[in-house]
């Protein structure tokens, strides 16, 4: 069943809101921030795409946000922006399902909870950190905020979180369980994540992020949240429609890309996944936008937002970083005719998610 995209809310390294994402697509540039970790007497400075939560208090009073962590604040901000974009911010959300996809969940709060007992003993474990570290806490905050009493789902499956969760959103709409789905994809940066990536990838994460250099580790850590308001496609779509969602494993059964579709690949500078893209896209007109928002599992949600924006703007935006790119990579913005777009994301083991969109 087709799903219509009625609203989008984004917050990432490029800024907040659809206009900020469009501006990044048009210029192909984003000012990458710096992360800084001080540990063992040394200072580690590195590029990082960080998301701001400025402006959340336009939607939710500061007092109501006191015990809510950064992960859920990012979630709430993008959810509010999406509902505003769909003119549903003040509407009845009792028939709106909430579906959230995250590769890792609220990492910072998970470690904050460990801090509470490692620093002060088990009898001082923090109930607030514990309850906010549970993976569906962000979805709960969204449901509470908007009085969304319909089904709620959180999916955590690394790179496949977004396509997998989309399957359920699609099914809920098809079965008539809900009238809308507020669908979000979120991941956050934390200091321990930097440590892990440094241990795994050494100095390979100093930027720039080069998605088409498939055999080179060039990922740059990112964070952000993107939300969509989805309805059945019998309503006019503000941004276009999600036609199909497919999951599989390239090793068991090679991915079949629809003929003539334009391809947006989720390549984000991870060498381990790069080899799968190299096999799959074979001369097809292709773009990759990770250099605008960085590398994190839920970033495939941002690829979907770019695809939706491209459909609305009738423009296939140029890839922002072309190092290592084959000739079929789109280097200049060009008008979209009737082509369909397909977002392809690979995990390191060859598992893939394929989301096809059209006007």
């Amino acid at each position: 069943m087709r799903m219509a995209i009625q609203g989008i809310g984004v917050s990432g390294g490029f800024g907040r809101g659809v206009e900020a994402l469009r501006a990044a697509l048009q210029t192909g540039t984003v000012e990458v921030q710096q992360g800084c970790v001080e540990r063992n007497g040394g200072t580690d400075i590195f590029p990082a795409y960080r998301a701001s939560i400025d402006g959340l208090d336009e939607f939710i009073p500061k007092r109501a946000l006191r015990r809510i962590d950064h992960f859920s604040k990012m979630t709430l901000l993008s959810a509010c922006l999406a509902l505003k974009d769909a003119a549903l911010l003040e509407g009845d959300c009792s028939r709106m399902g909430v579906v959230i996809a995250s590769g890792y969940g609220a990492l910072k709060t998970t470690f904050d909870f460990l801090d509470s007992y490692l620093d002060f003993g088990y009898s001082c474990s923090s109930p607030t950190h514990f309850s906010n570290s549970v993976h569906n806490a962000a979805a709960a905050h969204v449901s509470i905020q908007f009085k969304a009493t319909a089904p709620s789902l959180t999916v955590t499956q690394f790179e496949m979180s977004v396509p997998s969760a989309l399957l359920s959103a699609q099914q809920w709409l098809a079965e008539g369980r809900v009238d809308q789905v507020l669908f979000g994809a979120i991941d956050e940066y934390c200091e321990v994540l930097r440590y892990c990536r440094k241990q795994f990838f050494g100095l390979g994460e100093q930027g720039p992020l080069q998605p088409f250099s498939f055999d080179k580790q060039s990922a740059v850590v990112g964070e952000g949240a993107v939300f969509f308001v989805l309805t059945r496609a019998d309503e006019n779509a503000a941004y276009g429609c999600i036609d199909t969602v497919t999951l599989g494993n390239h090793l068991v059964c090679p991915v079949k890309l629809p003929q003539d579709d334009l391809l947006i690949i989720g390549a984000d500078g991870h060498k381990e996944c790069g080899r799968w893209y190299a096999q799959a896209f074979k001369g097809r007109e292709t773009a990759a936008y990770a250099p605008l928002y960085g590398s994190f599992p839920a970033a495939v949600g941002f690829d979907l937002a770019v695809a939706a924006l491209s459909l609305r703007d009738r423009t296939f935006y140029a890839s922002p970083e072309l190092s290592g790119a084959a000739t079929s990579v789109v280097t200049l913005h060009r008008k979209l005719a009737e082509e369909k777009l397909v977002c392809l994301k690979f995990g390191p083991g060859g598992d893939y998610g394929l989301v096809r969109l059209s006007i």
Partner: protein
Amino acid sequence: MSAAVPIVITGLGCLCGAGMNLAECLESMFRNERNPHPPLRFSTDHPVSYPVLELRDEFRLPLDDQETVYARTSQLALAAAFEALADAGWDEESLRGKRVGVCIGTTVGCALNCDDFYRAYKDGVDPEMGVIERFLRSNPAAVIARQLKLDGPNQTVVNACSSGTDAIGLGASWLRAGACDIVIAGGADELSRVTYAGFSSLMITDTEACKPFDIKRKGLNLGEGAGMLILESEAVRGAKKARGYMLGYGSACDAYHLTAPRPDGAGLKQAMYEAFAAAEVTPEMISFVNAHGTGTPDNDRVESRVLSEVLPDVPFVSTKGYTGHTLGAAGGIEAVFTVACLRRGELPANIGFSAADPELSGAPVIENTRIDGNIAMSESLAFGGNNAVLILGKGDA
């Protein structure tokens, strides 16, 4: 919403504190045995020792080095999945070429609960990355799909304590939509020092064996395990006999509080009525309920209120006295028990219950109880305000 086509259940598998497979679990539960004890797999400096229900024995998977390959939650998921697949007559070879989906609920299985690693990091040591590598290899649904070389949708649901119930409902909907021919669905979770510390910080764990629905209930006992069902399309099932049927699923969110259930139980009622409608059954057709019944004051109060209102006089039981609260696995394990009890025509006693709470509207079964009827309900309530309900039918095998 539209009515749901019944989905056939062809295989069941589970392991938990009550037993190392379904037969052992049923045997010990109907003998009314349980064995809560202080955790043996980890220690803390907490002044109070809360009993847990750990697996009674070690288990071995047909893997070269199961301990280093996958985290314990995924090992549990695989063990239950292998049992369920064997029960349904499938093996890796015979699944080849079939469209097989995997939908698994968990909590610990997706959390970076690596406190030894993090302690070393905080201490300025550069900890080895083995535990992180194992975490990254151990997403439960992906592990089952990878291990069995499956090509189909897979999803790991992290809806806290309703994850397993939700996973079964969502997996069944893939079959109805024609997205696959077979689904391995259920839940898995290991005992962890992190959740042990977390639940004790919330002051909802009992210092003794838990007492669901009892007047002296003080909280839950944590447990671990996995419960899996094999769901099949009619086309694939052929002449195979049914262990049971997945008739309907409903879910709803309280939108009320991060950890406490909504006092009037509106979300749970909404989930129940959605499940009834999907299954095209009326409350009168329900022969028993496998309740969430954690033994916490709040949960049992809300649940008994809703049960007495929607399903008055329908017998109900919490099996958490035998298994502990296995979090993301609970819905999977309890769905397996529900189908098994329908087949057996009998419910185990609600262990731990000895005196009714006048504040609660009903009481669970206090002894092993014969049941008639072909339809039962299993329900889960969760942090985040999630409520999930399955309507399950009796099979012919």
